[in-house]
């Protein structure tokens, strides 16, 4: 297929020496580059770019499972704007993302700083820390489901033995308890990733910088604030962008723990769109909820990018 496609134009323009033209093309980086990109770009365009566009289009139609829809304009969005469950899910998503990301960042950075110290069995500790990240989220979520059980929760049991509470905590049955419980599980899952990536950044910071700062009389906080933090900022920006994006679009954890309950109190936008589109069959409405997530995602990416640019500018010309 490659041969015929290439030889056609070659024959038209340079009938006399088509072999040399073909050979030229064979080493031409543009042409070769194109062929090397075909598999990756093919898959990404077919199963990523096209569905992304299709999703936006579906959100303007009244498609249902098993029935093609017609264009209905903004009807789905108008419908959602009056839907209190949708607004609850937006609130939950924002709460979940903000609280969990902030907690993940603080604990992750703290853990990275701890792991960066001189420790016995350092490699083993680092390997253990990453385990929550390796185990499939749904399966660890099931373990949390059992830990949060209303009757036989080990946390309730331990606190009861300690005499701190009189009766079991209803972790997933109460509105706010359920929110905090899911946020905790998300933080638990996300901390290892942040800690290990930040640790990799910390390891490239030369210890002599700290030594010099200490000789100049810098306190530990000043060393962190003026050496560690500035050198780590670019990695922090990238890691946190990823963390925020994946927390914002989280689905598995909520689905395995609460399925959005109790009374929609933990529905995120992703779980609500699954509920509406796949379970209830309202593909158009579900697509509208998904599409409503896009502006938030763009904002998160924009902020991270803007932060990096500012950083670059602050550090002056030495960067380029």
């Amino acid at each position, binding site marked *: 297929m490659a041969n015929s496609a290439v030889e056609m134009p070659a024959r038209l323009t340079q009938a006399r020496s088509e072999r040399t033209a073909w050979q030229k093309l064979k080493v031409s980086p543009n042409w070769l580059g194109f062929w090397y990109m075909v*598999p990756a770009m093919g898959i*990404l365009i077919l199963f990523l770019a096209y569905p992304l566009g299709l999703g936006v289009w579906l959100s303007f139609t009244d498609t249902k499972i098993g029935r093609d829809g017609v264009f209905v304009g903004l009807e789905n969005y108008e419908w959602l704007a009056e839907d209190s469950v949708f607004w609850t899910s937006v609130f939950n998503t924002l709460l979940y993302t903000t609280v969990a990301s902030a907690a993940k960042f603080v604990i992750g950075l703290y853990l990275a700083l701890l792991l960066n110290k001189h420790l016995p069995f350092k490699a083993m500790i680092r390997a253990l820390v990453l385990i929550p990240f390796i185990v499939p989220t749904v*399966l660890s979520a*099931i373990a949390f489901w059992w830990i949060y059980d209303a009757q036989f929760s080990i946390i309730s049991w331990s606190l009861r033995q300690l005499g701190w509470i009189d009766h079991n905590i209803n972790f997933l049955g109460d509105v706010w308890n359920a929110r905090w419980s899911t946020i905790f599980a998300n933080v638990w899952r996300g901390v290892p990733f942040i800690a290990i990536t930040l640790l990799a950044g910390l390891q490239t910071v030369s210890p002599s*910088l700290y030594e010099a700062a200490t000789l100049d009389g810098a306190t530990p906080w000043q060393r962190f604030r003026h050496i560690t933090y500035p050198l780590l900022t670019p990695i922090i920006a990238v890691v946190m962008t*990823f963390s925020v994006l994946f927390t914002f679009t989280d689905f598995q954890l909520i689905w395995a723990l609460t399925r959005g309950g109790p009374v929609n109190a933990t529905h995120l936008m992703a779980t609500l769109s699954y509920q509406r589109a796949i379970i209830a069959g309202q*593909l158009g409405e579900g697509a509208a909820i998904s599409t409503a997530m896009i502006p938030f995602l763009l904002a998160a990416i924009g902020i991270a990018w803007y932060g990096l640019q500012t950083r670059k500018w602050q550090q002056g010309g030495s960067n380029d």
Partner: protein
Amino acid sequence: MTSIDAGQDSAGRQAIAGSNATPDHSEGMGYLETLPRRVVTTYIPLILILIVLLFPFYWMALTAVKPDHQLIEMDKVSPFWTWEPTFKHIHKLLFESDYPRWLWNTMFIATCATFISLVASVLAAYAIVRLRFKGAVTVGALIFLAYLVPPSILFIPLATVIYKVGLFDTPLALILVYPTILIPFSTWLLMGYFKTIPYELEECALIDGATRAQILIKIILPLAVPGLISAFIFSFTLCWNEFIYALTFLSSTQNKTVPVAIVNEFVDGDIYRWGSLMAGALAGSLPLVILYAFFVEHYVSAMTGAVKE
């Protein structure tokens, strides 16, 4: 990856490389801290965090081997240990459920999807880094952007596509869709590895008359083996982990992957379900943890490599 523009040196790499320019062998100032101080500021917080991070797995494993009656009689025996472990739940999982079938599905889908993604990523990364065709930088940035598109906003339109092309409820649906998650990640990881391979090697081969394909297979790939292993096992883990596509595109019990099957097939009203549920979760995690134990360094370099680049 800090900067979308692959052509410019990103702020991140510069900042890190800047401090790392000269190899530094100083030991740091750890020796200035006294032991009691280290215990309070380092060891105790570290141990507490480790306990919280690992407890759910301990609890999962313990529940999987606990006899049923101990699960609910927490006041008679201490729930933190059991002296009469039972393999009833694990036996039930392995021999009375479709678990082996689900495990096979998961491995098959993960292996195929990873393999497809690696081939596509190697070609793409090599083209972007070394062929430097017109628009290579833009294409690199686009692939990075693809990394930021989450499955949660794609599963609805993809479900309609999958249904229309008749792939619904087949493993092929997932094999074709998973590369959209894996290719952006692997391409960026491999680009980083390819950049470290000296140009001179390629120039020598070109002068000797090697074609680009020969260079890629005989020179670049053998030198990038650590990168390939990292990309492979990390992609494999991502496939195993994936949930929302598998939940949406597969419907019959025997076609499911492990995570979806455990969530959907084991949840019934039985109060004693926890034993088999935890056995399922344990059995679904163990293969990955074992793989991880052998390749810890590759995992870490995959995670940090893709982020630092």
